[in-house]
């Protein structure tokens, strides 16, 4: 595995996942894509990423279930997660924070803004661990 920071993108819409992946890889991250919550959770356990981007609405396991699983795992509970919610589902934001998310984005969003938030969150985490 490379020295690049690893980001797991949990997103069931390929067009969003592809674009986010392109932008983050270009910004210097290694990106792993889980097309459903179950696959994303497997990738999180395998790779212990630096950050997770979690869509709320996903098949098999939704974003909240993945967050809870991360929180219950001793090796995953410190990994920061950014939630991505659909417009009109703003109550998901509060629920996401209660479950341990550190930030959120509402669809549709700016991929440049998302990349900036990823950078800021990973930067804060590195500062905290130093």
């Amino acid at each position, binding site marked *: 595995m490379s020295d690049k920071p690893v980001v797991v993108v949990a997103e069931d*819409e390929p*067009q*969003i996942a*592809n*674009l986010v992946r*392109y*932008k983050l890889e*270009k910004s210097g991250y290694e990106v792993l894509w889980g097309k459903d919550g179950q696959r994303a959770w497997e990738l999180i356990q395998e790779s212990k990423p630096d950050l997770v981007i979690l869509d709320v609405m996903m098949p098999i396991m939704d974003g*909240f*279930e993945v967050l*809870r699983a991360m929180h219950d795992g001793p090796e995953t509970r410190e990994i920061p997660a950014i939630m991505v919610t659909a*417009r*009109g589902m*703003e109550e998901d934001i509060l629920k996401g924070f209660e479950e341990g998310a550190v930030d959120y984005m509402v*669809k*549709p*969003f*700016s*991929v*440049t*803004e998302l990349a900036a938030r990823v950078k800021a969150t990973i930067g804060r985490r590195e500062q905290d661990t130093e």
Partner: protein
Amino acid sequence: MPQADVLTASIAMAVTYSVIGLFVLVVFMFLSLIVLRIVVARRERTFDGKVEEIRPAVYELLTGDSPAGEVVAELHATIPMQDRRALEYVLLENARVLKGRELEILTMVFEQLGYADEDITTVRHGRDIKKAESAFHLGTMRTARAVPYLVSLLSSSSPEVKFSALNALSKIGTPDAIAAVMEYLATDNDLETMRVAEVILERKQAFSPYLEEWLKRGEADIPRLELLIDLVGVMKDTKAVLVLFDYLAHENPAVRARAASALGSIRDISARDRLEIALFDEDPGVRAEAASALGKVQCIEAIPLLKGSLADPDLAVKMNSAQALSQLGEEGYAALEEGLAASEDQERRVVAEVMAVQQIRNGEGG
């Protein structure tokens, strides 16, 4: 040979040839379908392949450091004419999920490469299915100059065309587009709440003041009032709570029931006292919606009243009260069990059923 035998032989031959002819026709049609399917599949594969090829160029356009004008010129020069549809597809799929500067870039490309003109022409002269599709494209790309043409689609006889135009106008969101949608809401008699809600949710901030003002004026027939009340409920418009209180006292029971339901959807705890009063409305439909709403707004103080409503003569009120109690934590469950113990056998079955359903739902929710 006797004449009868000749006739029989002729009939037999005719039948045989007919059967063979029919068989050949069926085989021919079957083979034609297979060929058609292969051709369509090949075209789809080719299209998908082109889309895959074009995506990185569009991603670069959106995320790269090069000036957008340069990238557009490059796209124009490098994408062959026959791949225009694939490029349009990629522009649209990205415009659907992006906003801000990235959406502005996509809108500019859509204009400069002539897609907006093509779609406006289709909106004016195309078949209904194509009009609806082009209206959707223009809305996704926020093409403001298409507003007059989209407004003209609102008088179409096709519901698909009308809703596609409404959706596009709502997404474009300029003052003239918003005014056209509001005018349509005030005059059309063929509205479907959920589809209208889907449309105006795109621009909740822009539409909310209009809907609130309209509800305050109250100048609408009963079906339109019900629609407006449903919409502010779906939009979870907290600013509409006060005006909804007035509608809880409306003379029409269907309007009162809608107001109670909307207050439940908005989940504003300030509605508690009014909903408790509505629990004693003379109309069972209003009582049922009020009970349901008290559960949704998490009104612990209403537990004794909801427990009392378990003995309501109306089945819907009973069921909604049981469900509301089951949403109010341990205290609510305890009240539900007490109500269950005190009720007649039939009531107990209803309540037990509701509790079982609720437990299954809680289980599904993790």
